[in-house]
C-alpha cells in the first residue's frame, strides 16, 4: 500500500533542481502550465518536451517515477482525448462521420496535442513535488500568499495548517498500515467480499484512525502551547528561503523558452 502512494513524494537528491528556491520552482511550474497553451504546432510541442525532459534529466530522478505519475490519470486523459477526437469541429480531411460524431484530421491532431499537454503538466508538477521537500513547498506558499494579508487573509495560520497536514501524511499512512495489520490479525478481510462487506471492514480501520488523529492533534496543540506558540505574527523562521543566482538563471531560461515558443507557434 505504501509503495503505491509513492508518487508525489519527495525524493532526496543533490541536483541543481533540488537546490533551487522552492518559490522559484513553484512559480515557474505554474508559469510553465501557462505557456503550454502557447504551443499550437509540432515544433512548439517538441520544444516543450525537449525542455521538460532536460529538466527531468537534470534532476537525476529516475524516469519511471514520471511514467508512474501519468499512470493513475491515464483513463481521464484518454477519455478527454477521445472526446476531443470525436466531437471537435471538423477540419482538414474527414475520415469518418456518423451523426454528430466526426473523426477528422483536425480532431486527431487536436487529440494528440491534448494528450501532450496532459503529459507535460503531469511531468512538470511531478518534478516539482519529487524535488521539493513538502515543508519547503509550504514555506513557499506562505511567502507567495503574503500579499493577501492586506485583505486580512490568515496567511500564517493557513501555512501552519498546511505544514502540519503535510508533516502528518506519512505518519497517518504508517498508522493506517499498522491498524490494518492489527485488524487483519483479528480476522478482518480488507478488499474482499461484496461492497457491503467491504464497507463494514472499513469501520474497524476508520474509528481507530480518527481516535488517534484527534489524540495526536490534541497532544500537538498542548505541546505547541506549552512551548509558547501564540500565532504566527512576527515569528522568526528556522528555514530561511534564499534566492540564488541559479534561480535567476532558471527564470531567464523560462523567458527564453517563452520567446522561442511565440516565435515558433503557427
Amino acid at each position, binding site marked *: 500500500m*505504501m*509503495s503505491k502512494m*509513492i508518487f508525489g513524494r519527495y*525524493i*532526496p537528491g543533490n541536483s541543481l533542481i533540488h537546490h533551487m528556491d522552492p518559490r522559484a520552482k513553484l512559480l515557474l511550474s505554474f508559469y510553465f502550465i501557462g505557456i503550454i497553451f502557447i504551443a499550437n504546432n509540432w515544433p512548439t510541442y517538441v520544444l516543450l518536451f525537449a525542455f521538460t525532459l532536460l529538466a527531468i534529466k537534470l534532476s537525476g530522478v*529516475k524516469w519511471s517515477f514520471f511514467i508512474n505519475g501519468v499512470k493513475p490519470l491515464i483513463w481521464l486523459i484518454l477519455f478527454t482525448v477521445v472526446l476531443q477526437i470525436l466531437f471537435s469541429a471538423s477540419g482538414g480531411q474527414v475520415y469518418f462521420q456518423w451523426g454528430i460524431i466526426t473523426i477528422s484530421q483536425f480532431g486527431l491532431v487536436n487529440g494528440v496535442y491534448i494528450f501532450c499537454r496532459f503529459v507535460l503538466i503531469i511531468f512538470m508538477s511531478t518534478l516539482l513535488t519529487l524535488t521539493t521537500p513538502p515543508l519547503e513547498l509550504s514555506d513557499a506558499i506562505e511567502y507567495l500568499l503574503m500579499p493577501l494579508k492586506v485583505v486580512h487573509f490568515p496567511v500564517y495560520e493557513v501555512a501552519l495548517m498546511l505544514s502540519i497536514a503535510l508533516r502528518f501524511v506519512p505518519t497517518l499512512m504508517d*498508522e493506517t498500515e*499498522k*491498524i490494518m*495489520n*492489527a*485488524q*487483519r*490479525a*483479528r*480476522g*478482518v*478481510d480488507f478488499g*474482499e467480499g461484496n461492497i457491503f462487506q467491504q464497507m463494514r471492514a472499513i*469501520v*474497524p480501520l476508520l*474509528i*481507530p484512525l480518527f*481516535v*488517534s488523529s484527534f489524540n495526536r492533534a490534541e497532544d500537538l496543540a498542548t505541546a505547541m502551547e506549552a512551548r509558547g506558540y501564540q500565532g504566527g505574527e512576527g515569528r522568526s523562521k528556522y528555514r530561511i528561503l534564499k534566492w540564488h543566482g541559479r534561480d535567476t538563471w532558471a527564470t531567464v531560461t523560462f523567458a527564453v523558452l517563452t520567446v522561442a515558443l511565440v516565435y515558433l507557434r503557427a
Partner: protein
Amino acid sequence: MAITFKQVEFTYQPGTPFETKALTDINVTIPDGSYTALIGHTGSGKSTLLQHLDALLKPTSGTVTIGDRVITPTTSNKDLKRLRQHVGIVFQFPESQLFEETVAKDIAFGPQNFGASEADALKLAAKMLTLVGLDADLLQRSPFDLSGGQMRRVAIAGVLAMQPKVLVLDEPTAGLDPQGRLEMMDMFARLRHEQQLTIVLVTHQMDDVANYANNVIVMDHGRVVKTGTPQAIFKDPQWLAEHHLGLPKTTAFAQQLIARGMTFDEMPLTEDQLAAALVKQLPTSVLGGGDHDE
C-alpha cells in the same frame, strides 16, 4: 504449531529509493510448545519477523512454514483466515486497535470474524476480561473511557479471545506499571501451560527472557545471529554487549560476584537460581548458624 523460516529475506518497498532490507537469510525454527523470546537492538527486524508469523507480510524470497501452511512470495492473500485464527498477534501498543462501542463487543470481534456466534463470543469476552485481570463491570463501558493500562488489557483480551495456538507478543508490557507487568507475564506463562500454547515474545526486558523463555532468538541488522537456551545466550556478556544487549539483573549481579573471585557451575539467570547457587557455596558452619538474612 511449529513455525519454520527457510532462507527468508524481506525488503520494504522494493524497487524504490526507499528500499530497506529488513530481513536477510533467516533460517530459524520456533518449536511447537516453546516459549521463544526474540531479542535484538532496536531496528534489528523483530517486528518485521513477527508479521511473517501471521502472513501479514510475505517473504520477498524464501518460505515460511506455519503448521502445515507454506507461505511463499507468491501466496495469495485470500484464504489466510484459517491460518490467522491459529496465530494471535498482540502488536506493539495494541490499544490503538480498539474501535467498538463496548469493551465486550471489542473483545468479541475476533471470535465473531472467525465464525463464533455472537452469544458465544460475548461469553468468551467476559471470560477473557477476568483473565487479563479486569473487573467484569467494565464489559459495558466504552473502551475509550478506560485508562491506558486498562485499554492495553482489553486489547490483549481481544487477541486471547480468538483462542490461538500460537500467541505472538510484541513488547506487550511496555509502559505498564511494574505490578501490572508481573501479572501480565505470569498470566501468559499460565495460559501456556493450561492450553499448550506456543508463545513468541519480543522484549527488551532481559529479566523476562530469563524468567519465562526456554528458547531465545537474537537478531541484529536483519539477521539471526544466535539461537539457544537463555543459559547459552547469557553466558557471554561481552558478545551481548557487542550486539547492544544487556544481562538479566540477577546475571549482572552474578557477574560482579565472579569479578570478585566467586565461581558458578552454571550461570544463574533468576533470583531463585542465584540463591540456590549461593547457598551451595556457603560453608556449612554458616548455614548451621542460622542467623543469615535472605
